[in-house]
């Protein structure tokens, strides 16, 4: 097939990529965007069933054009907003979706493929769309054009901007993008859509749909996705590279850094205050003026080289916002829709002679109505897979212990989040279970509530972990916990590797009662 116009957004085809073993593989991918630089077309592809963070710009030679699947025509009409979830729709599912869409929603924007794994979800999104006024506008068949037009400018701006930044971009790109834009333009305007609909967060969904406020997401939490999140702009990474201290990071997701900075090959961040700068020169200049050598907060924990700093999102807005912008590059579901006032940020640093280098952080609502003790949590990529994530989690539970509460991370969890938390919960719970000694010759026993109290892990998480570990069994009329050999061995091995631990004695933390402080 031809390289040119044939391959458009919504097409699916196998794309070459290297796996972890550096082997070639040809996973199916969806074209999300097309641009042309110096005569070469580049395709932004999303690998089906892979996480968005692996999306990338690829050259035409990596495309297996022979297996190109065009987006179904019907799909265009009904799709409410472009991309429903974090992953693109698979063509196979289209029919189902289509019928539903058609029945409920006659016309919206032309849709590109959209994955709706569960009918339920689709229905939800539909219901969401209908009640909202804004949704109504865009969902009306007649209004399609207008809504497109209305959305268009923003896209245009983006394009124009990219044009400016990259003078080399030629007209074609603009056109292609425009086409693109047209195709997906409506997505952002669909207020009813909920992107992070169901990650165990069905409640969330229904809640949102019921309150019928289309324009703004709810204000609690940090992960509630805003609807605009779903549009094509936010689906694509916008920052190519971030230089932070010694590290160069490849962002995983979109982050709303100032738009003029997104065209830069490298975005420079001050390692300590996280200010974003457009050039190394600027960073140099900035460093002459920036005296920070640690996060601008109070150090509430230090052991060895590891320290934690507490930053109030209301008192230190600049830093909090910069931190959020950075974090957003690696957290798909994080929303920056609202200000940082109701959050505290706990930044974990590692000290060396240059200062306290940020390793990761987690944010936490000052007051959580849902027992969340973590809003967003992130280990920066250079530090990942070295136990820091677990350290962050452990710290968050230490704080909860001080507060005398149980807590749970805000949902949805990311894949990495789930793995990390499961791992932490497993180890924490197994630690307790294995430490239980027979009492007076009686078989040791423990309640779930007790586990929860000891660990500050919310009861539901304890149960889910026990289930995940397959420890709960029903035996002779009662539930029992069974520890299999491989569980025990696995745990022992894991614990051997876990040398980074939080030492509660090094924590100097006094919880504040934020409910008494007026507004956050």
């Amino acid at each position: 097939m031809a390289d040119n116009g044939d391959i458009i957004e919504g097409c699916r085809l196998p794309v070459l990529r290297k796996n972890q073993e550096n082997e070639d593989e040809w996973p199916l991918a969806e074209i999300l965007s097309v641009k042309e630089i110096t005569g070469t077309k580049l395709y932004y592809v999303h690998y089906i069933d892979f996480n968005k963070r692996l999306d990338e710009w690829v050259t035409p030679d990596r495309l297996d054009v022979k297996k190109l699947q065009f987006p179904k025509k019907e799909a265009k009409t009904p799709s409410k907003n472009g991309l429903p979830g974090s992953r693109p729709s698979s063509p196979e599912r289209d029919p189902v979706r289509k019928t539903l869409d058609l029945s409920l929603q006659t016309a919206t924007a032309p849709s590109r493929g959209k994955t709706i794994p569960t009918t339920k979800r689709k229905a939800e999104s539909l219901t969401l769309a209908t009640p909202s006024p804004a949704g109504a506008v865009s969902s009306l068949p007649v209004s399609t054009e207008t809504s497109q037009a209305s959305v268009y400018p923003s896209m245009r701006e983006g394009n124009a901007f990219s044009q400016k930044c990259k003078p080399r971009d030629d007209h074609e790109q603009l056109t292609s993008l425009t086409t693109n834009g047209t195709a997906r333009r409506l997505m952002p305007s669909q207020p009813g859509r909920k992107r992070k609909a169901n990650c165990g967060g069905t409640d969330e969904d229904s809640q949102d749909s019921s309150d019928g406020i289309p324009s703004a997401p709810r204000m609690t939490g940090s992960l509630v996705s805003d609807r605009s999140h779903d549009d094509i702009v936010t689906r694509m990474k916008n920052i190519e590279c971030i230089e932070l201290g010694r590290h160069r990071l490849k962002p995983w997701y979109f982050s709303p850094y100032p738009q003029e900075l997104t065209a830069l090959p490298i975005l420079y961040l001050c390692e300590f205050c996280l200010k974003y700068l457009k050039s190394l020169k600027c960073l140099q200049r900035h460093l002459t003026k920036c005296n920070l050598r640690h996060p601008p907060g109070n150090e509430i924990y230090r052991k060895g080289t590891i320290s934690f700093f507490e930053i109030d999102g209301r008192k230190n807005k600049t830093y909090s916002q910069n931190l959020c912008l950075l974090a957003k590059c690696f957290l798909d579901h994080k929303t920056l829709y609202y200000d940082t006032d109701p959050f505290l940020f706990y930044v974990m640093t590692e000290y060396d002679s240059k200062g306290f280098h940020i390793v990761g952080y987690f944010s936490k609502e000052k007051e959580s109505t849902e027992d969340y003790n973590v809003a967003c949590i992130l280990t920066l990529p250079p530090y990942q897979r070295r136990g820091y994530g677990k350290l962050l989690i452990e710290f968050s539970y230490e704080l909860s212990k001080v507060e005398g509460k149980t807590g749970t991370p805000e949902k949805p969890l990311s894949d990495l989040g789930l793995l990390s938390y499961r791992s932490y919960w497993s180890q924490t719970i197994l630690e307790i279970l294995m430490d239980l000694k027979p009492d007076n010759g009686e078989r040791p026993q423990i309640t779930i509530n007790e586990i929860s109290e000891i660990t500050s892990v919310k009861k539901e998480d304890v149960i889910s972990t026990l289930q995940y570990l397959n420890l709960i069994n029903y035996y002779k009329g009662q539930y029992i916990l069974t520890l299999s050999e491989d569980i025990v061995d696995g745990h022992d091995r894991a614990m051997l590797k876990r040398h980074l631990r939080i030492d509660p004695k090094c924590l100097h933390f006094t919880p504040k009662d934020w409910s008494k402080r007026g507004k956050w």
Partner: protein
Amino acid sequence: MSKLSFRARALDAAKPLPIYRNRDLPDLNDCVSINRAVPQMPTGMEKEEESEHHLQRAISAQQVFREKKESMVIPVPEAESNITYYDRLYKGEFRIPKQLIHIQPFNLDNEQPDYDMDSEDETLLNRLNRKMEIKPLQFEMMMDRLEKASANQLVTLQEAKLLLNEDDYLLKSVYDYWVRKRKNCRGPSLTPQIKQESRDGSTNNDPYVAFRRRTEKMQTRKNRKNDEASYEKMLKLRREFSTAVTILEMIKRREKSKRELLHLTLEVVEKRYQMGDFGGEILNQVTIPRPEKCVYSSPISLPNGNRHKMESKTKRPHHISIKEESHFDFVRPKKKYQKKAKLEVFRQQSHTVHRSAINKSDIKQYDFHSSGEEDYPQVQSPASEPDEENDPDGMFGFRRKAGCQYYAPRVDQSDSLLWDYPELAGLRELRHRHCLTALSVPRRCVGLARRRVGRGGRVIMDRASSEHDRILKRLDPEAFASDPGNAGSDCPDSPVWTSASRSLPGKASSLGEILSNIKACRWRCFQPRPSQAKDGGDGSAWKKLGPTANGRPAEMVASLNTPKNTTSGGITEEQYQTHQQQLAQMQKQQLAQLQQKRPSQHASLPDRHNAQVPGTPDCVSKTLDSASAQFAASAVISAPGLGSSEANKDSRTHSANVNGIVQTSGTSKSLHSTSSTAPPPPAPVQLLRTTSGGGSNHLPVLCTGAPQSLPGAAHLNNASVVSPVNLHLSARASAPSPSALKLATVAATALERPPKVTPASAIGSMARENHEPERLALNGISETTVAMEVT
């Protein structure tokens, strides 16, 4: 499957779960199916993502291997950590502080420009630097200001000039450069900013808009109750605060009026002094047309005690006593008063009294326990209710006599005596009710006593026992013995006091004079009291005291005639009888005296004194100033003389008397109206009763209650004139009034030891009167001030 129904039981989080090792349960596999009965918990992930390939692979790898496999981890975009220029970029080292780092959030805001120079700027800078020196920071400052000043529109060159205040050339170059750069700039600003929300909501879906303000309220569900409660509390608080404000406003207003009043009074006094209106004639004339005013002031001014004091001024011993009084004064503000205004008129005093009354009432009203309670009792007379005091129309309300002039009592001073007296500190409780009382006849201090007026105008002294009785008793006699004039006053007081009194000028002479006066007058009112005016020390003080003294005479008068006291049983039958006699005598006496006095009105004092107290008028007057008792007595006597018993009504005569007195006291400059009766001391220990023997001094002092207190009539030539006496006589109703007065009677003994007597009486009268300015007393004074002289 049937088993399943068994297992429908939910997992109970509160139920203990026994922990088994798999090896302990060989038959566990039989139960495997049961596991499915446990509801699956959601993972917390989005369903779509949960099914992602790498995650599933990782999860299954974990399940299988129970640990992470390198090859099975979720792949992520690569990160590099090999920035080679890092060390050059981040210069210097940072030493880790030993303490945990604490940062003040607002210290972060330094004045550094947000604008960071780029390489393009650097080129310009290099160019500029050829002509002039400009540092990067300076340049950045300029750019920063320009940037921040132009939100939507670029600042003009003119504005830039104002903004930057730089050299013209530099400014122009930078400005031009900035404008150019700004125009080429892709973003809205040269310093990249996060896109802000626009108010029209058009940016609601703009992905580049972040950190919108939260316009809606945070969920308050949790605290709704608290909110309501606290809201109500706030409302209540506000109400209470506003009440407090109102009260304070009112207090402020009140205090202002008080001050005004004081100033006015002062002015009046000074004017009068300048005019030589010592007798109050002029004042009277002026005042008559506006009786209400007088009414206002007079009720308070009338208390006998004041008068007594006033009179005391004329005589030396009294003077001393007065001094004592002031010394003891515990009411601070009033003290100040005295010091500031040396020539205070009675009126002023009355005001003070009035004021104090107001204060009390206010205090009561507003429930200021802490400050109010202590003062309250002190100021107040025990016998009378505060309200009474405030309300002139009370049952015993004072009725002004037309044409009479009334002077204010020195309530405060008299009161304070005991209190200030260190030794008597323990007497606190008794203090307001009782006064230190000394008897002249049996030379001794009887301790605490309270005067009352009994039937027929008898003065009853209620004695009160206290821990300090010993001291008190010891004090008095000595004083009497040593210094006739001071006797009464000195004894109870501290050495300081005595010395002060002694130091008074002309004392010696005055003593003698007093003696002679007493003899001549044949009156003697003996009521030695420990509490005396402090002012004694200075001549001026004397003068001040004058007013205080005023009250006393009345007291004395009252005390003279009062029969025995019921409580103390102090008054003997004899006394009563004598009392009757005295009355008659007094009247006669008064008449006689009046006649005598009349001739010399201004110089009346001398005359008067002559009549009453043989001695040099002037000296006498001086001495007398302080010596309240005698003076008072004389005054009283004169008063009655004028109007006979009720003669006082006649303003003229009255004034004349006053004048005369005043004149004598003229040196002291204080005017004393004889008419005013001193309020009776709260706790009369002894009833002193003086009978005025017609023309001769034979007023026996009757000490009822006090064992020794005998109407030492024999040697007491108490001419103590008791207006109350008349009052009592005429109007018994008044008798019950507080006016238990001590009468200092100058008896015949006066001749023998006149000085003693006088002072004593003066002293005695002093303090308590102040306490109890009673209308009755006042009335009595006005109407019935009778000077009784005992032969």
